């Protein structure tokens, strides 16, 4: 079978599922963030695959650029929050962090 749109979509579906699994099961906040990055990457693969097989219109690629920009902003803010949580609670285990303040 020739490599086409379906192949790229299935790769992105598996990547999405792996990211979702990391977000659900991992206890470490940093690993949850890595799962979110995997999910964003899988969404980007979809955008670019549809852009190519939908007539090479470039709109999908523009959307992918915005996804990358927001992923960078998200990673910076989330890591700042994680570092702050670590300073206060001395742990990054998302199960143990249940209070808004000490």
């Amino acid at each position, binding site marked *: 079978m*020739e*490599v086409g*749109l*379906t*192949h*790229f979509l*299935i*790769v992105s579906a*598996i*990547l*999405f*599922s*792996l*990211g*979702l*699994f*990391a977000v*659900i*099961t*991992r*206890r*470490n*906040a*940093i*690993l949850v*963030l*890595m799962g979110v*990055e*995997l999910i964003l*990457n899988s969404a*980007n*693969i979809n955008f*670019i695959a549809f*852009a*190519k*097989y*939908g*007539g*090479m219109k*470039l709109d999908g*690629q*523009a959307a992918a*650029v*915005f996804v*990358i*920009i*927001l992923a*960078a*902003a*998200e*990673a*910076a*803010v989330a*890591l*700042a929050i*994680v*570092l702050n949580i*670590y300073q206060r609670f001395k742990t*990054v285990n998302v*199960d143990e962090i249940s209070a808004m303040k000490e």
Partner: protein
Amino acid sequence: MTLYEAIFYFFAIITLVSAGIVVFSKNVIHSAFSLLFTFFGVTGIYVLLNADFIAVTQLLIYVGGILVLLLFGVMLTNKVIDVELKTGTLQTVPASIIVASIAGVLCGVFYITDWKIIPASMDATKSTTAGLGEMFMTTYLLPFEVASVVLLVALVGAAMIARKERTVE
């Protein structure tokens, strides 16, 4: 098997195997470093999809920026000399069932759907950078400017949050 297919399977396997290591590895450092290969594999897939500009952006921002940021996060929040670096998982069985069913539905839908493929209107071998740049200065001008403000505010906010609190006199 053509060269295109061989390259596709090569990058797809790199992406999925290293993403599996990211998700299932017990060691956070191993996860962070195999995320590098995941991003690299995704970059290869972008190149196969004629997205040269996005591929370079992916390398610069994800590998050069976000991954380094995540590594800093790993090193600053774990006692490296300790065994603390290992992390557990929780509720693996229900999560596996849910994720497997979601993956099954997604793959099934992607496989069954008869996608209508529109042949490329422009030369597929042409660089997309000029077209994207023109697009950001015309059609997507407002979202582009808003995104730049969002990025600035987010980074200033991140610096504010991460700084140690000073006691107010």
